[in-house]
């Protein structure tokens, strides 16, 4: 098998280089900036397409650069990273379109899009990382590049949110680093391997390994918003809507969940991890997070905060699926990694549209908004039903496999958690939908006149419609080749087959 050396680097560069150039552009260079952004995003989609095609034909893509004595920076495209990369690349393209229109006429756009591109670079780096040290590197880079996006508005509230974000993620990063160094000092390698690398190397270090596992998961759990570490996420809502969308669907939260998948599958190996007895506590933690997030979401009037708590809850489905340690649950968790991203980004786009076009920030102001913005609210409705897990939407696939997986792994209590969470989801989403579609509007909405459609600017409208449609398609056509479900099955077969 011949390896393609440069391609992973090119994928990184396709967003990093435009990002760095954008920093140097003057504020007025709108056209150049848009061209750079869009060509970077499109190029990345093409490159990722090539990689997927190559991988399914047995090609290997790997880049190795010398870094520390005995350690290399490794970028490697494998099945699991492809899942995450495809998600980030497609959603980055969509979000870029959205963000360009959303931030029209607001100050400091060069800085914003510069960090925006770097943020995606870091996410892609996380996805491509072939060993734990590379992962840590991009993980910290993600922390740093997200910070300026969160405080972008420059208000006192934004500064506080940024501080809270940093306190959480820095401590998380420190724990992750400590775990990584410790693991390295024990094993002398950090290379991700199918079914883990620690099991064969270390007889009789079980206690150390359990503590290391706890350190790594705590470090990753901060970004994945697992329960004791989740409070930064709702605060980070002060950021502009495209940032929230990206944060929740792709970048930060997902990076944490993806990291947990990496640690469980490729560092410890699922079999060894469940022998150590670390997966059950993780599953319980995830279950608590699911319920807690949903309950908190019930009581939020601010739309974006409600969505934020919903994210806290939904991302833990992924962790739950991984921690249940059975093949079917794994499929559920991995599929949800993609599906949650697509559905949640739809919801955030819609929330952004409401606030940008009509100035609506609160659920209680949403009476009758469906008449004024039917397409936006239609997309929102699809996203919300997906979150509740209604067939035939993408969210149903995840929940179905999670439920089956729980039974298969003999963890029947999980069914209760899933049912409870779906009920709670319905309780906080249905009132929104009811208000939007069935109540009389309290006030006249300001009429706006856009060229293409009177609802809102087309660049704000197309992204949520596209992602909503995508979530429908992924649900309907789940069994076709190259669908997320099939891809997740493939990854699972790598991990579980004898």
């Amino acid at each position, binding site marked *: 098998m011949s390896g393609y050396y440069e391609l992973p680097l090119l994928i990184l560069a396709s967003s990093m280089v435009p990002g760095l150039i954008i920093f140097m552009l003057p504020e007025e260079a709108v056209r150049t900036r848009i061209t750079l952004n869009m060509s970077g995003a499109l190029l990345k989609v093409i490159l990722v397409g090539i990689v997927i095609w190559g991988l399914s034909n047995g090609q290997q893509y790997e880049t190795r650069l010398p*870094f520390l004595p005995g350690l290399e920076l490794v970028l490697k495209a494998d099945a699991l990273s492809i899942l995450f990369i495809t998600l980030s690349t497609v959603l980055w393209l969509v979000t870029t379109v959205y963000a360009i229109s959303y931030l029209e006429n607001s100050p400091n756009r060069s*800085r914003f899009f510069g960090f925006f591109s770097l943020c995606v670079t870091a996410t892609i780096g996380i996805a491509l990382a072939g060993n734990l040290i590379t992962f840590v*590197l991009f993980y910290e*880079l993600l922390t740093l590049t997200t910070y*300026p996006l969160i405080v972008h508005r420059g208000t006192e509230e934004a500064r506080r949110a940024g501080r809270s974000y940093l306190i959480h993620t820095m*401590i998380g990063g*420190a724990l992750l680093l400590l775990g990584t160094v410790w693991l390295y000092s024990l094993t002398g390698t950090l290379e991700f391997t199918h079914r883990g690398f620690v099991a064969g190397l270390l007889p009789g270090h079980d206690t150390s390994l359990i503590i290391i596992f706890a350190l790594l998961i705590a470090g990753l759990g901060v970004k994945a918003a697992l329960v004791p570490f989740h409070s930064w996420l709702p605060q980070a809502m002060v950021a502009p809507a495209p940032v929230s969308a990206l944060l929740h669907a792709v970048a930060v939260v997902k990076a944490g969940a993806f990291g947990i998948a990496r640690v469980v599958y490729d560092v410890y190996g699922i079999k060894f991890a469940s022998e150590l007895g670390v997966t059950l506590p993780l599953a319980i933690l995830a279950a608590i997070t699911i319920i807690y997030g949903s309950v908190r979401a019930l009581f939020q009037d601010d739309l974006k905060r409600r969505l934020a708590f919903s994210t806290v809850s939904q991302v833990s489905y992924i962790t739950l699926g991984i921690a249940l340690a059975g093949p079917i649950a794994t499929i559920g968790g991995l599929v949800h990694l993609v599906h949650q991203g697509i559905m949640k980004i739809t919801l955030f786009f819609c929330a952004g549209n409401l606030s940008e076009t009509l100035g609506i920030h609160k659920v209680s102001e949403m009476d009758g908004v469906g008449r004024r913005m039917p397409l936006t609210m239609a997309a929102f409705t699809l996203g919300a039903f997906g979150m509740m897990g209604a067939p035939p939407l993408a969210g149903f696939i995840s929940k179905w496999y999670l439920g089956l997986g729980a039974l298969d792994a003999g963890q029947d209590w999980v069914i209760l958690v899933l049912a409870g969470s779906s009920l709670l989801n319905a309780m906080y989403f249905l009132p929104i939908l009811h208000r939007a579609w069935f109540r009389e509007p309290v006030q006249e909405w300001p009429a706006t006149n856009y060229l293409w459609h009177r609802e809102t600017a087309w660049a704000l409208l197309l992204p949520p419609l596209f992602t909503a449609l995508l979530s429908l398609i992924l649900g309907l056509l789940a069994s076709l080749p190259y669908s997320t479900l099939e891809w997740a099955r493939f990854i699972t077969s790598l991990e579980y087959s004898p």
Partner: protein
Amino acid sequence: MLIVLPLIGTLLCFLLPRQVKALGLMTALAIAAGAVALLWQLLEQGAMRYPVGGWGAPLGIDLYVDGLSLLMLLITVTVGLAVSIYANAAFKPEKAVYFWPLWLLLWTALNALFLSADLFNLYVTLELLGLSAVALVALAGGSAALGAAMRYLLVSLLGSMLYLLGLALLYHSFASVDIAILAQRMESTPAVWAAMVLMTAGLLLKTALFPLHFWLPPAHANAPAAVSALLSALVVKASFYILLRLWLEVFPLSHAAPGQFLGLLGAAAILWGGVQALRQTRLKMLIAYSTVSQLGYLFIAFPLATTMAWKGAMYLLLSHALAKSAMFLAAGNLLLFGGHDRISHLDRVAQRLPLTLAAFALAGVSIMGLPPSAGFVGKWLLLDTALRSGEWGWAVVMILGSLLAAAYVFKVIGYAFTQAEVTHEASEVSPTMEWTAFALALAAIVLGLLTHWPLALMDIGAPLAISLPALDSGAAA
């Protein structure tokens, strides 16, 4: 050559005050060329001894180059060049007349110090270094700066005196001051132990290790930005370099207990400096306390005492030199821009002075030890060593130090984004000053990616190899 050049420059600057800026810059470039030539020679031939005037070691003065001294020379050149360019943009002609001769004298002292092969020569250079540094602090004028300079002078003299006392004891016992010869004749007698304690104490005072750091924050914070950068990046490192040489080559006796002690002081410095930095309301004071904290990391290598730990400490030293000088230069820009350095009144500098803030932030990344930066590499090496030898405490202290660093760096960056209640009239900052700060910060990041050759350079002449054979390199020549 490297010693004579800046000395000539100093004299010329004294004699021709009108052309001082051009002369100074030319000297700086010449030194840089000389250092690169020496690097090339070192890579060809390995560690070298050079007897000045043709007299051999027991009688004459020897100069000695190995990977360690060359790295110190190179970092001096890098920081020195950037600061020189910055200073030419920052200082008005009447200040530049004083700055250049003093700075070149300081550079002479630094180069001579890194090249010296005997302890008495080191004493001379140390004294020269101290005096020129004090004069540079006083350059800012004003009562605060003069007071700080006075305190610095006393501390510096006390430190040199302790060192000289120890040196006298050694000379009395072994009749030589040459490092290689001393290393061969070394034995464990009370006089040697007394000498070791005295010299170490003197050097610790100059390196400002906790609790002997009290003089550093005022001196570094009140000096002009270019000077603060030099002091924090290079001057405190020089005395650390001597200490390192002493411990590795002259006193390679069993020193587990003293090493532990230094490590404990280092740990205390990391935490104390970090907490103090977090409490500061003035930007330059914050950066100065951050130096106290970061110097502590260098001493964590003493209790670990493996080659990898020494390399980690050296890497941190390099990264701190680059990052801290960048930070001080950036702070200088902010000070000039707003006319003040109160952190909470930074007033949207993220928008208005983005390049300077980027320099500060990148330097901050290295100070926090986040990847990819030189600071991360150093901390990784130290952490790895600590955990391999099961020394948990050091690892935890280092992690806590990084968190504190993150806290104080982001405290500044956070306020840079918001609008202050009190706005100040903004004055122009020249692009040269912004770019030099940025270049240094970028260098700290790049050094974190190109780890191969600095680490390989540290092996030339094996200055960091542990155990007694540290003598080999010297004895061979």
